[in-house]
């Protein structure tokens, strides 16, 4: 087709061009509204974290060096820190799934109004300072705290059991703080499961138990994986609760980073640990987005 031979269509082409130019200009104007947020992130996160990244790769004389990373492989103390971090993160995630699934299921089965009320049991702790909640556990789990008093008077155990300043206390506190992060996305994905599926399963002769395990559970998996990932990734870099409830016995990566800065003021070593933490977090998230459409489960379709 010879477009240029026809004067009318040439005119249209011109209009189209102006419109397109205007459209592009407007789009740019619009996008510039995101600029302040963008700049803030660059200034507060990208540049400082990039700086730390650089620090982790140089020695005292400003020469490129892998010494900070070599230390992690050579020193046994680092291996223990990584092991503890993974242990705590995995155990916390498992505990959260065990407690979170029944709760999310319960909430998803309720009529909307009731669910809104019971949801407060998840939302109120979620928005209460984690420092306050950590403190509460410290008080509850103490040697002469409420839990020990109760267990002894009920005859469950005879002498006070050490529940805090160790792994047990850390896990209890972490699970309590992380539970909402699992329940909220899981609840969201459960609400999206169409009731008709369950009708169909029942109609085809499945018992309630069968239709749960063969229809409902597989459909709720994406929400469960999304929630577990959030919990796991947050646990990896967690600081406050292990520091307080672990009582120095549960040393995770974040605790180690602050210890290095406080005791040795060694920015290179601290930064290297931070870089490892970031890379581990990104790897987990990347693997997950590959496996399933995590962002869709988290933020809805955008």
């Amino acid at each position, binding site marked *: 087709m010879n477009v240029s031979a026809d004067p009318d269509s040439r005119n249209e082409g011109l209009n189209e061009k102006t419109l397109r130019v205007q459209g592009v200009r407007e789009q740019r104007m619009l996008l510039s509204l*995101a600029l302040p947020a963008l700049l803030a*992130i660059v200034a507060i996160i990208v540049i400082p974290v990039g*700086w730390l990244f650089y620090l982790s790769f140089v020695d005292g004389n400003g020469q490129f060096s892998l010494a900070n990373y070599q230390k992690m492989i050579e020193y046994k103390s680092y291996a223990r820190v990584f092991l503890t971090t993974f242990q705590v993160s995995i155990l916390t995630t498992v505990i959260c799934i065990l407690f979170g699934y029944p709760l999310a299921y319960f909430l998803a089965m309720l009529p909307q109004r009731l669910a809104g009320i019971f949801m407060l*049991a998840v939302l109120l702790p979620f928005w209460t300072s984690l420092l306050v909640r950590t403190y509460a556990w410290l*008080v509850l789990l103490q040697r002469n705290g*409420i839990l020990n008093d109760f267990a002894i008077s009920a005859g469950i155990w005879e002498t006070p059991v050490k529940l805090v300043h160790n792994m047990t206390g850390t896990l209890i506190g972490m699970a309590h703080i992380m539970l909402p992060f699992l329940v909220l996305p899981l609840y969201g994905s459960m609400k999206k499961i169409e009731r008709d599926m369950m009708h169909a399963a029942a109609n085809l002769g499945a018992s309630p138990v069968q239709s749960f395990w063969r229809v409902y559970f597989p459909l709720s998996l994406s929400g469960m994986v999304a929630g577990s990932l959030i919990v796991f990734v947050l646990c990896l870099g967690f600081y406050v609760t292990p520091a307080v409830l672990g009582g120095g016995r549960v040393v995770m990566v974040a605790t180690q980073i602050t210890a290095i800065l406080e005791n040795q003021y060694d920015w290179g070593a601290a930064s290297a640990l931070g870089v490892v933490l970031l890379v581990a977090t990104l790897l987990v998230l990347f693997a997950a987005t590959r496996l399933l459409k995590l962002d869709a489960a988290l933020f809805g379709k955008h």
Partner: protein
Amino acid sequence: MKWLKKPASDTQLTHGDRLWLYIVAAIIMLLLVIPTFIVLPMSFSDSQYLEFPPEVWSTRWYAVYFESSKWMRATVTSFQVGILTMLLATPLGTMAAYALFVSGHRAARAIFAFLITPMIVPVILIAIGAFYAYGRVGLNNTITGIVLAHTVLASPLVMIVITSALRNYDLNQERVARSLGATRLKAFFVITLPQIKFSIVTAALLSFLTSFDEVIIAIFVSGGLNATLTKHMFAALRDFIDPTIAAISTIMILVSTTLLLAAQFIGGKGK
């Protein structure tokens, strides 16, 4: 107990069959709620030690708190930082969310993903990064420094709240306004803003809380006369358990519960 016999779900179950689920869920909810609120009664104890239930009730620990210039100063700082963070993060996040939602630009998705990175990067890394960088430009122990860091932490939350509000809103209304001669700016302020205002208020409250409850960045970059409440509390927790902390915890719970209920109420109104 008639309701136990009533059908509970679409698959022939009665409430009676589901009783175990209700009991399990109730226990889990109690486990979530009780430790959150247990410090409330304990803060009114007269004893040196934390007791539950208190034998003698008193408000002595509140008196200690209100008479301590250190705690008062930290409380004022926390509120200051929270309010300033709210005032910065809310417009920042709203502008970005609106821009990315409306533009439909190819890069919008990628920019959105970049803007929510503060939720993905471990906070400890943000904290030591800011501490190091602030050290170079003299922002450590200043209100400005902590507000900037908290703003970056809170703005992704604002973006998510506003984006979900925009998703439930018919943008054609803005187009109609513009075809009738309104500029984009006017169309936004006159047509869109009033319809998403509840979400904006919710986002603002949540960003205040994000800052008010934040610990790790506060530990690193706040200090001296500008130390926040959470920084002092963390230091106190590592050393000894003082009932004053229970009183302060109660006040913090009061703040977050009030704001959350307000956000829930306002959010519900928006729908």
